[in-house]
C-alpha cells in the first residue's frame, strides 16, 4: 500500500514538472509581453531595461527554474498586466469560479442522476425519448454557443436574467459570495446551466446505460419476483449498484468543470480565474498563465491521485490482484 502510494505521488510530481516545462516552452510563442507593457513611445533602451528587469532575457531553462524555485515558496510573481502579486489576484478570483463550479456541479449531478434514472425506468416512454434526444444538444453544442443562446433568450428577449457579471456580492472574510443577494443568485443561473449542461447530459447518459445494465441483472429479476415494490427495486437495488462508475466519472468531471469554466466565464464576464487566464493570454501575462496552468494541473493530478487511492481502498479485487502479483 505504502509503496503504491509513494509511486503514485512520485508519478504525479513528474507530471507536474513536465506540464510546467511544456507551458514555459509555449510561452515564447504566445508573443512578447514587453510590447503590451510599454506604450508606442518606448525606446529600445526601455525595452532592454524591462526585459532585463523581468528576467525575460534569460534562457528558457533558467526562467523555468526560477519559476519553480519561487513557486515552491508560494510566490508566483507579479502580473505583468495588473502589476499585483499573482497569488493575491488568484485568491481574489477563486471564489467566483468555485461558486460557479459548485452550483453547476450540483446541478449536473442532481439533474443528471434524476433524468438518467427516469429515462432508464421509462425506457420507451415519449418523455424519456424526448429527453434523450434533447440531451444530444447538450453534448454536441459548443459551450459558448449555449451561453450566447441563453443570453439571447433570457436576457435580451425575455429580460429575466442578467447577461453578465456576478451581481451584488457579499464579503465574508477573504471570500466574496453571490449566494446571499438576489442579484447574485440571479446572475448564477445562466452561467451555471451553460457550464453544467455538458456534464449533466454526460452523467445522465451514463446513469441511464449503467442502470439499464443493472436492471437486466438476475438479482433485480429475483427482487421483482419476490414482489418488492418498483420503487424499492429501482432505487435501493438498481441505483445503488449503478453509482460506482458514476461516482468515478463525477470525480473526474469536477476537475474539468473548474478547468473548462474559461469559456463560460468569458461569455458571461464572470470574474473568476478562467476569465483571468484568457486576459493573461491576450496580454502575454506569463506569471498569471504559469500560475493558472500549474494550479489546474495540480488540481487534476490531485483528483486523479485521490481517485486512484480510493479505488485501491474501495475495490477489494484490486487489492487481491496486487497481493497475488507480489
Amino acid at each position, binding site marked *: 500500500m505504502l509503496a503504491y502510494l509513494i509511486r503514485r505521488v512520485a508519478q504525479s510530481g513528474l507530471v507536474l514538472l513536465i506540464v510546467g516545462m511544456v507551458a514555459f516552452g509555449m510561452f515564447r*510563442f504566445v508573443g512578447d509581453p514587453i510590447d503590451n507593457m510599454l506604450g508606442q513611445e518606448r*525606446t*529600445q*533602451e526601455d525595452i532592454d531595461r524591462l526585459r532585463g528587469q523581468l528576467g525575460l532575457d534569460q534562457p528558457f531553462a533558467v526562467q523555468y527554474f526560477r519559476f519553480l524555485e519561487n513557486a515552491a515558496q508560494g510566490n508566483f510573481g507579479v502580473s505583468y498586466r495588473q502589476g499585483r502579486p499573482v497569488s493575491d489576484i488568484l485568491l481574489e478570483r477563486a471564489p467566483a469560479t468555485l461558486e460557479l463550479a459548485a452550483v453547476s456541479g450540483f446541478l449536473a449531478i442532481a439533474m443528471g442522476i434524476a433524468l438518467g434514472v427516469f429515462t432508464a425506468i421509462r425506457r420507451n416512454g415519449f418523455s424519456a425519448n424526448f429527453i434523450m434526444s434533447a440531451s444530444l444538444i447538450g453534448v454536441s453544442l459548443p459551450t459558448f454557443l449555449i451561453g450566447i443562446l441563453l443570453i439571447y433568450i433570457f*436576457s435580451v428577449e425575455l429580460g429575466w436574467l442578467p447577461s453578465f457579471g456576478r451581481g451584488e456580492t457579499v464579503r465574508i472574510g477573504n471570500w466574496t459570495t453571490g449566494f446571499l443577494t438576489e442579484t447574485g443568485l440571479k446572475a448564477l443561473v445562466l452561467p451555471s446551466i451553460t457550464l453544467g449542461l455538458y456534464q449533466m447530459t454526460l452523467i445522465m447518459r451514463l446513469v441511464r446505460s449503467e442502470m439499464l445494465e443493472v436492471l437486466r441483472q438476475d438479482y433485480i429479476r429475483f427482487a421483482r419476483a419476490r414482489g418488492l415494490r418498483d420503487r424499492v427495486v429501482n432505487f435501493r437495488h438498481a441505483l445503488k449498484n449503478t453509482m460506482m462508475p458514476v461516482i468515478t466519472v463525477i470525480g473526474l468531471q469536477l476537475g474539468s468543470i473548474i478547468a473548462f469554466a474559461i469559456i463560460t466565464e468569458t461569455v458571461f464576464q464572470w470574474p473568476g480565474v478562467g476569465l483571468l487566464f484568457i486576459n493573461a493570454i491576450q496580454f502575454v501575462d506569463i506569471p498569471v498563465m504559469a500560475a493558472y496552468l500549474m494550479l489546474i494541473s495540480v488540481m487534476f493530478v490531485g483528483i486523479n491521485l485521490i481517485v486512484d487511492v480510493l479505488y485501491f481502498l474501495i475495490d477489494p479485487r484490486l487489492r487481491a490482484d496486487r497481493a497475488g502479483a507480489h
Partner: protein
Amino acid sequence: MKVSTVAVTAALLASTAMVAQAETLRWARSGDALTLDPHAQNEGPTHTIRHQMYEPLIIRDVTGAFEPALATDWAPKEGDPNVWVFNLREGVTFHDGAAFTAEDVVFSFERAQQPNSDMKELIGSITEVRAVDDFTIEMVTDGPNPILPSNLTNLFIMDKGWTEANNTVNVQDFEGGEITFATTNTNGTGPYVLTSREPDVKTVMTRNEDYWGRDQFPMEVSEIVYTPIQNAATRVAALLSGEIDFLQDMPVQDLSRVAEADGLAVKTAPQNRVIFFGMNQGADDIEADNIDGANPLADVRVRQAMSMAINRDAIKQVVMRGQSEPAGMIAPPFVNGWTADMDGESGTDIETAKGLMADAGYADGFSIRLDCPNDRYVNDEAICQAAVGMLGQIGVTVNLDAKPKAQHFPLITDGKTDFYMLGWGVPTYDSEYIFNFLVHGREADIGTWNGTGFDSDDLDAKIASLASNTDLDARNADIASIWRVVQDEQLYIPIHHQVLNWAMTDAVGIDVDPEDQPKVKYFTMN
C-alpha cells in the same frame, strides 16, 4: 396592517422619486484601467477612468480642440521662447477638501518625471516647473517647444499634501508589482469621486457636488458604474437587454442590430487612428519574397502600383460595413499637417498599376508575405485578406500571416517583416509625432516604428528642426514639404481612417470623442 401598507407604498413612491433624480450611467467597454496611479501607465482605458476623477491642466473637447481645465490660459513667455506660462484656476478643491495651488502642479510634474513614471517621455523636454505665485506656473523647456501643451492633456494633477500623507510620493513601480495607496485610492479635482473599485470587475464613482465646473457642464450623471465586458457578443447583449446605458468598443457587425433596436442609438465619428501597410524598401534583398538578389519593394513604381491595386472603397463597404474613411495619407484628419488633397491621393487603377509593375521589371509579379495582426484593429485580419485578393490582380501573390498583436508588433520593431500592417494614433495632434516614429530613420530612440528602411539625412534634419521651430508658419511649411516626400516616395500604403462607434440608450446624450475618451461631465441624461 393598513398602516404598514401605506408606509410601504410611501416608501416605494419615495424610492421611485429618488430614482428619477439619481441618474446612474451604467457603462461598459472591453477592458479596464490597469491602475489608478495617475502617472504609472500611459494607456487609453486607464486614462479614461482617471479623467473622471483627476484633471490635467488642459483637456481636449470632442472636436480635439484645447479646453481649459485646471489652467485657465497659457502662452509662451514674452521674450523667452523656452518658457511656457500657465495661469491656474482659482477656487478649486481636491476631493478631500484641500485647496488646489501651484505647489500641487509643481509636485505632480516632478512626480511624473520620476524613473518609474510612464508619462516621463511626454514631458521629457521640461527641465523645470516653477511656481511664480499660488496660481501661476512657468515651465522651462530645454529649447523652444511650440507644441508643449499638446503633451499635457493626460498629465493629471495630484494633491501634494494627500500624496505625502499617504506615502505615495513615488510613482508605483508597476512592473515590480508594487501596490501603493494611489493605486487603489484617488484624490483628484475631477467631476467624479471614487466610491468603490474591484479591478476588472466593477468601478463605481459618484458626482462631485463641489466640482468647480458643476454649473458649467451638464454633469447630469450622478453615479457611474463602469464594468469591463470582454466578450463582444455579451457586451452587445448587455446593451440590448437594458443592463448597460453606454457602450464603447462596439463590434461593427452588430452596429445595424443596435441602431435598429428601440431605444438605442449608435453615434459615429472619425477616430484618431489611421491604418496602413508598411513596405521594407531599404534592404537590398528581402526574405519575405520569392525574388533572389533584389528587393522589388525598393522600386517606387512597385510601391505605387501596390497602392493603386488596393480598392479602399470596397474595403470600406465589404470589410468595414461602411465604418471607415478611405485614406490617402497616414495622418488622421485632426492632425496639424493633414490636408484633404493629400488624403485624397489614393485611387484604384489596376491598368496603370500593371503598367508600373511592367516598367519596374515585374510584369510577372512576385510573391511576398504580409504580416498582419488579428486582435488589434477593427477587422484587421479581414482587411489583410481583402488586400491579398486585390494585390493578386497585379500579379503580387501575397501569403498572409496573421497573428495576435503580441507576436505581430515585435516583428516591426525588430525589423523582421518586409510587408506589414500598422495603425497609428497621434496623441499630440501634430505631424511631428508621426514623422518621429514612422518617417525618421531608425535609431535607438527615434524612428522606432519605421520598418520601411527609409532613411534620409535631409529629411531627418528637417524633422529634428520641427521640435524647436517657434515660427509656426515656417514650421507648417516644413511639415508640408516632409509630407510631400512621404507621399511621392509612397513610403506607406494608406488604407483608411478608423471610425469610432459609441452605442447608448436614447436617454444618454454625448458626442463621440475622437480619442475614445468619454468624459462623463459632458453627458446629459433624459
